[in-house]
């Protein structure tokens, strides 16, 4: 029975021979005197779930911010499809994040004054969707993530697990190619964390969305296809499974 699992349809995204969708080479970044990145490299293929692991302060968050075009590295190249993020303008990188990337953070990412439905719709409206269409699609996503019942509530009125599922819905709603998840279950208990990871990876695999997962939790990392360990600003690839 266990063998059947692995011989079945490709559960793991990103065929090893496929060209990377997003890659960074020899990235350096310093904040003042401290070197957050010291020659890190990373690639992610379309539909692949990659876990970025490492002790706190190792630079994994900075690496993620660089890869997502939020922070510009001091040196090195980051290429998404055929575009070099390091030479793009801030406006272009913002547009890229809006349309191609999705984000999930540990907490506090939902706009407190908007309802959950509006929070999900926000991602679509940032991409230029009309309000009505955005909210209709957002409602579908809340359904998919099994939080349709909190659609009208504000983030302050729901539980952390529900909030993170809304955040996952928001990240997925705009149909991004890559989702960046920074400790998405960091503020959740095991059960809620598991639920969020199940829904995130299942949806991402179904949509063919790549996920870059920053975590120090091995059980969260176990949802990935491959892990990359960051130590002292440098990366070390684990063997692909």
């Amino acid at each position, binding site marked *: *029975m*266990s063998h059947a*699992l*692995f011989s079945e349809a490709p*559960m793991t995204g990103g065929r090893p021979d496929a060209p990377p969708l997003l890659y960074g080479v020899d990235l350096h970044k310093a904040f003042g005197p401290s070197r957050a990145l010291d020659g890190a490299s990373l690639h992610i293929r379309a539909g692949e779930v990659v876990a970025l692991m490492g*002790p706190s302060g190792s630079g994994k968050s900075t690496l993620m911010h660089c890869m997502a075009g939020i922070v510009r590295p001091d040196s090195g190249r980051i290429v998404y499809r055929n575009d070099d993020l390091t030479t793009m303008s801030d406006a272009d990188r913002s547009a890229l994040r809006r349309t191609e990337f999705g984000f999930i953070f540990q907490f506090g990412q939902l706009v407190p004054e908007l309802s959950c439905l509006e929070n999900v719709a926000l991602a679509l409206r940032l991409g230029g969707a009309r309000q009505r269409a955005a909210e209709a699609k957002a409602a579908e996503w809340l359904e998919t993530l099994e939080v349709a019942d909190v659609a009208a509530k504000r983030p302050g009125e729901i539980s952390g697990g529900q909030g993170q599922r809304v955040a996952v819905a928001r990240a997925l709603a705009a149909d991004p190619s890559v989702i960046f998840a920074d400790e998405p279950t960091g503020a959740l208990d095991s059960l809620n964390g598991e639920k969020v990871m*199940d829904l995130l990876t*299942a949806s991402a695999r179904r949509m063919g969305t790549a996920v870059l997962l920053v975590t120090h939790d*091995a*059980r969260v*990392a*176990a*949802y*990935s*296809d491959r*892990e990359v*360990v960051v130590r002292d600003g440098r990366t*070390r690839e*684990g*063997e692909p*499974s």
Partner: protein
Amino acid sequence: MSVAQTLLGLLESGPRYGYDLKRAYDERFGRDRPLHYGQVYSTLARLLKNGLVEVESVEPGGGPERKCYTITDAGVTDVEHWLAQPEKPEPYLQSTLYTKVVLALLTGRAAAEVLDAQRTEHLRLMRELTRRKQQGDLADKLICDHALFHLEADLRWLELTAARLGELAKEVRR
């Protein structure tokens, strides 16, 4: 893993033939390592000898698989006892790895690689379990979780040991 107590537990819900017992065991607990028939019958023979089970009836046609077993009062007491007794923690993995790391340090090999290889292997297994968990029912989830938490604990030990390698190397080479 105590096969004897598990079989006893299965018999508690009602009398079964030996073959049925094996199938029930495999279905619920034996996915990783199915029982051999021989093991089942030798265990049952031991339980019979100790008076924890008895044969209720024998189907015509002969052969051991045609015996219907039932649990005795002593057998119920035994299961009860087993359930109440906590399992002894198993330090076997750590001690094996410790031996490996120390050996690597002593012979000048890269101990970090030993740990990293182990770490990758752990994660590979965790990934497998996670996948199985995602597809299985609640029982699968609980069983896989148990394994995952253990593996995670091992992983933490691996990471901590990796962080303390320098310290350990000094100690070993002294």
